[in-house]
């Protein structure tokens, strides 16, 4: 017989704190969708293989289907609903619109959360599998289409919008560099 025990937790999502009692089996993804009505985060496979449920956990991307809600207590969760600055779209969101970097839109929230984190990862000078030279003296990895393809490969898109996703993320990453420069 499966456990039916529950836990009352405090979840911090998009800057707001929510107190809720969850079934211990509840994933962060289901807590967001079914309890907080934050359905922008999508369930594509529910087993960490597609990236549609990507959110930011303390600023780093994570598959929310692989996190239990009870384990997310005390962490800062950012979903696609929390990416924009009020009515003003995040540069990644604007670039997705402008470059038509989506079709059905179902993988899009996860793609956008991933892309927001990818730009942060560039700023933090993290290398990827596509970084040719990871020695410190080689300098930080450069924003390139190859780097973005690699870093965005945890987010599947079945409509086949990758070509435009790469353009959109490149544009947003370059814009972010200009802002910090």
């Amino acid at each position, binding site marked *: 017989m499966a456990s*039916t025990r529950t836990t009352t937790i405090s979840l911090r999502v998009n800057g707001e704190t929510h107190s809720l009692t969850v079934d211990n089996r509840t994933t962060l993804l289901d807590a967001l969708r079914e309890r907080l009505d934050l359905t922008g985060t999508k369930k594509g496979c529910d087993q960490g293989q597609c990236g549609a449920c990507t959110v930011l956990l303390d600023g780093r991307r994570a598959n929310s289907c692989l996190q239990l809600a009870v384990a997310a207590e005390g962490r800062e969760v950012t979903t696609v609903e929390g990416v*924009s600055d009020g009515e003003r779209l995040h540069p990644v969101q604007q670039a997705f619109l402008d470059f038509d970097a989506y079709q*059905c839109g179902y993988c899009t929230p996860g793609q956008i959360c991933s892309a927001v984190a990818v730009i942060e990862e560039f700023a933090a000078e993290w290398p990827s599998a596509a970084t040719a030279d990871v020695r410190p003296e080689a300098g930080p990895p450069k924003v390139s289409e190859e780097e973005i393809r690699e870093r965005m490969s945890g987010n599947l*898109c079945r409509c086949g919008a990758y070509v435009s996703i790469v353009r959109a993320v490149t544009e947003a990453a370059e814009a972010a560099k200009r802002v910090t420069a």
Partner: protein
Amino acid sequence: MTAPSLPITSTTTTESTPTRTNDAVGAANTRVEGIAKVTGQARYAGDIPFAELAYGWLVLSTVARGRIRSIDAEPVLAMSGVLAVLHHGNAPRLQPGVGLMGPDASTLLLQDDRVPYRGWPVALVVAETIEQARAAAEALVVTYDEEPHDVVFTADHPAAHTPEPSRLVQPDVERGDVEAELAASAVVVDEEYTTPEQYHNAMEPHAAMARWENGRLEVVDANQGSHAVAQLLAALFSLDLDSVRVRSEHVGGAFGSKGFNAHLILAVMAATQLDRPVRVVLTRRQMFSLVGYRPATAQRVRLGADADGRLRALDHESVSLSSAHQQFVEASTRHSRALYGADALRVRTKVVPLDVGAPSFMRAPGWTPGSFAVESAMDELAEKSGEDPIRLRVRNEPAVAPGSGLPFSSRNVIACYEEGARRFGWADRDPRPGTRRDGRWSLGLGMAASAHSAGVAPATASITAEADGTFTVRIAAADIGTGARTALILIAADALGVPQESVRMKIADSDFGPAFLAGGSMGTTSWAWAITEAAVALSKKVLPGDPIPPEGITAKADTTELVGGREQLESLGFGAQFAEVAVDVTTGEVRVRRMLGIFAVGRIVNPLTARSQLIGGMTWGLSMALHEGGVRDTASGGLANADLAAYHYASNADVPVIEADWVDDPDTYNPSGIKGLGEIGIVGGAAAIANAVWHATGVRQRALPLRLDRVLGAGA
């Protein structure tokens, strides 16, 4: 308030009537639902909250053939939160003979104890929460009396037979003496090409919510045609069509898989039995046995030609996997019926029904596997005859459609070859294979032709002239990611002669009346026609300057007679695809470096989304060439790779720069000039890549996907 001037009527412009505009179609427009999609506000079928919502979870058979001996529901019903266990012993009775394309046994769920294949629904568990439903479904003990099964598809399987012709199965063609022409040919190609089972895998799992509200069945579903689904539900559950409403506002991809599926039927059963809203969402793994797939094919192509490559004979036989439970025919010979003229033509289609779930339509059904076989064979003929692949194709341009004998409404494939060759740098290609290297990579270029039928089907639409000067269009169209909603706004704006901002587009609601599905690349064409006719009807009801009452003035149109009254022509979109690949001959790895597709697909409504649609299709072609293939476990009868970790499709890092563009293709066979371009992008892509792999290595690849072992083994 007065009405703006409408296109068919007065040309007088007064102070109160805005200048007539008709330039929306053809300009790039971002999607009207774009902001909702990038901010997470777009609600898909599984996203809409309902009070008192219960959750259904499917239980699927674990044997491939047999009978259910027992279902031990009692312990599960005692579990926390469990509301019901539906099975063949207690489920509502359904009306047989119902289906999207004729009687479909797959709709008859929980009606008897038979198990036709592994992964067939045997129960639905309903509970208060997702967690409870899932745990209960996993705890349900079902026992079976197993019977032997057969899931091993081969072209020469004893069960192979020619299916009865139907609206979906064109009869075989035999014109001229293929054997005599082959015997007289200077060059002959005779090869077998195989394609595996391929799975749609839309990102959004199939989801439906059903509830009864004031005596009416209300459904929110992920589907490709809300009205068709409402009709089917009414028939299956013996209800009046008026008492069923189906909505499908946003759909997270479909590709042919979101017709009329188990999740919806079971949600309606549960909502009816429990009298409360029930949502059923398929798991990714369940999608592999419940929403169809492209069946495996084995295709033999025989080409006979004169020394200069002129075809004397084209013989194409396609054998495809089907289901003993519910037949589906993959019409792979569509490509050979449309592309090349030969003195003698023979096309034959066979199926092998086995103990597997029913295959179904998947992006460019028939065209996709058929083009792999025929376009690969044409490349082999080019090699054998020493002719350039493009010149060979041009030489064999038919005067009329080879299969039907009908004239083409237009055929601009040569312009696609020429423009594609120019932009891809085809002229610089050394025809000899294996001549270009880049370090450890062997490089090659390949091309193939694309084609897809440009059909149109009846639809109804209404347009309301509102008192505030705006217009509301209602049509049971579906936007499954194609950009249809936006395209139809542009169509309507031009038809009404108003700015697009004045048009409100309401779609995906069965209450709007009959309309063809988003399928067969026919959606936008069919819906545009109905909307244009509704605009004409409105212009006759509302004259410029007429007062508009608060409820507006509505005009309707139904294109059934117009569509049925056209002369018979062969109407197709065409294209040419080019690919450059790099092959690591020591590991067998194939990387696509670039692709270009040039298409002749009629009038382009929205260049921004049209390009996305074509590139998306080409991405599918790449994915089909390199990655995709369902693997049957012969012992269990199920699929060995039923998840996204094991069933691979292209990820971002697999996809290089892909360009798609088009040539002028005026064609008024459909009054709108639209041909539909949803699917043509996938047609020919895999052949272009396989042909490029030959060019890189000198070794032919006739089995998809082009796995490492196949690329390596072929050279041995």
